[in-house]
């Protein structure tokens, strides 16, 4: 049984139930129940029309739940006027669910959890494991999120930017537990790109593909970080890179630049370089200038300082770094790197140690500690 196919049908089946009159929360529950039944029944007897099967079973689950909910009269009304899977509304069902699950009234963690369940078709247990929280906690987070959006009508388009932020958060979570969230984020962004024609959706998809293409080379077998310059480029996924670059070029050609397209352009320039030494840092600085203009984010300015350091030398990088607020995460790590390139190993070692103390994850802390130790033990 193709579980990816099964899960890709989730949002449209929810959409059909909602159009037949189910409220979103009940429809979502019913479709989850139907998915569980599909996993059980399909291996022995896979239906010819998987979507039709899911709609039928989910609708029956919904009616059962409504019946047991004492809302008898409501059920009878619904059965009486049960419409056929009707004509599509102006906005595609799947797309509407993306907007609903990323609704601005939801907190980021609630939006992420609801998106993974209602759009991604993951179970509560899978989501809980991926985020390392108890299943009961995740179940509560999801049911609260559903209550929060219960009054939102599924009939008009929302803000694509909020959806992209949610997908980006999922992608950034990477891999923990038995669900590969980065791959899941790519699948959901791909599905979104098929439902809506928007250059920033394409930009985010390209960015994810280009980053994901380098994943195998980014860590050592024991989980240590491998910096970009030291990665084994023969392990990069060239098919994913080619796809990402193709999607990006098509998006850029439309001349509606946005943050994700510009970030993807930086990733594409890295992916395109046969060796670290051949990286086109001058162009990368130009893209960071665009990003500063688009976002004015201190994190972007920090990354720009690294690029300037590569393009124009460490002194220029340190000058660019002076414009960046010192409280920005990874400021000390960047300063350490630029000082090392500039030959000031004592300052670099001190700053690497400082950066290790400020790191927000284990892999980064260990990597920075190693950098400090490397300099401290190399000196006479």
């Amino acid at each position, binding site marked *: 049984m193709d579980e990816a196919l099964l899960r890709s049908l989730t949002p449209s089946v929810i959409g059909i139930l909602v159009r037949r009159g189910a409220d979103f929360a009940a429809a979502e529950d019913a479709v989850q129940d139907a998915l569980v039944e599909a996993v059980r029944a399909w291996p022995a007897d896979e239906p010819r029309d998987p979507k039709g099967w899911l709609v039928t079973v989910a609708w029956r689950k919904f009616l059962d739940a409504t019946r047991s909910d004492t809302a008898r009269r409501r059920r009878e009304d619904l059965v009486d006027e049960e419409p056929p899977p009707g004509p599509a509304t102006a906005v595609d069902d799947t797309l509407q669910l993306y907007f609903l699950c990323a609704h601005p009234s939801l*907190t*980021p*963690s*609630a939006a*992420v*959890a609801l998106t993974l369940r209602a759009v991604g078709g993951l179970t509560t247990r899978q989501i809980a494991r991926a*985020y*390392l*929280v*108890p299943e*009961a*906690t*995740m*179940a*509560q*987070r*999801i049911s*609260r999120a559903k209550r929060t959006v219960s009054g939102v009508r599924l009939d008009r388009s929302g803000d694509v930017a909020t959806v992209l932020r949610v997908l980006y*958060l999922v*992608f*950034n*979570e*990477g*891999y*923990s537990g038995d669900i590969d969230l980065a791959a899941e984020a790519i699948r959901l962004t791909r599905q979104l790109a098929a439902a809506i024609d928007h250059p920033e959706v394409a930009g985010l998809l390209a960015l994810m593909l280009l*980053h994901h293409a380098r994943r195998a080379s*980014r860590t050592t077998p024991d989980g240590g*970080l491998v*910096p*970009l310059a030291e990665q084994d480029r023969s392990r990069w996924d060239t098919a994913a890179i080619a796809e990402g670059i193709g999607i990006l070029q098509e998006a850029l050609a439309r001349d509606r630049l946005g943050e994700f397209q510009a970030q993807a352009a930086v990733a594409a320039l890295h992916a395109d370089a046969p060796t670290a030494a051949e990286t086109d840092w001058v162009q990368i600085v130009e893209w960071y200038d665009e990003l500063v203009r688009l976002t004015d984010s201190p*994190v972007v300015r920090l*990354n720009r300082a690294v690029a300037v350091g590569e393009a124009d030398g460490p002194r220029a990088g340190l000058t660019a770094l002076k414009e960046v607020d010192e409280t920005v995460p*990874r400021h000390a790590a960047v300063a350490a790197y630029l000082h090392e390139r500039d030959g000031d190993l004592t300052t670099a070692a001190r700053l690497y140690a400082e950066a290790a103390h400020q*790191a*927000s*994850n*284990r*892999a*980064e*802390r260990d990597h920075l500690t190693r950098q400090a130790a490397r300099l401290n033990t190399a000196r006479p």
Partner: protein
Amino acid sequence: MAKYLLLKHYRGAPESVNHVPMEKWTQEEITAHIQYMNDFAARLEETGEYVDSQALAPGGTFVRYDGEGRPPVTDGPFAETKDLIAGWMVIDVDSYERALALAGELSAAPGAGGRPIHEWLELRPFLGESPTVTE
């Protein structure tokens, strides 16, 4: 989405405002305190922010390796050790501000006289498991 540890100390934290020790409270005050803690945890479960909570016995032992083929050496507890952890709660929240607010709420648990203890709690962020995509 980040996990934080709320650490409660038997010893080692600055003194709380309402610092009458629990063994001197009335039965009702103890009941009210426990109820407050349970309600707090239940509320966090309901908001989808609860991960774990545990309490530790005050007595502990220090243990260390003592060489190949030898049993581990034990010692302590050391009265002079400044820090003594009483227990913890782990929360998973959207922001540092939210973590601060929850710690403040937990610190307001009632003690002697039914007044808030104003206990000092230590708030510590977890190190994440995996790095973000930034390289």
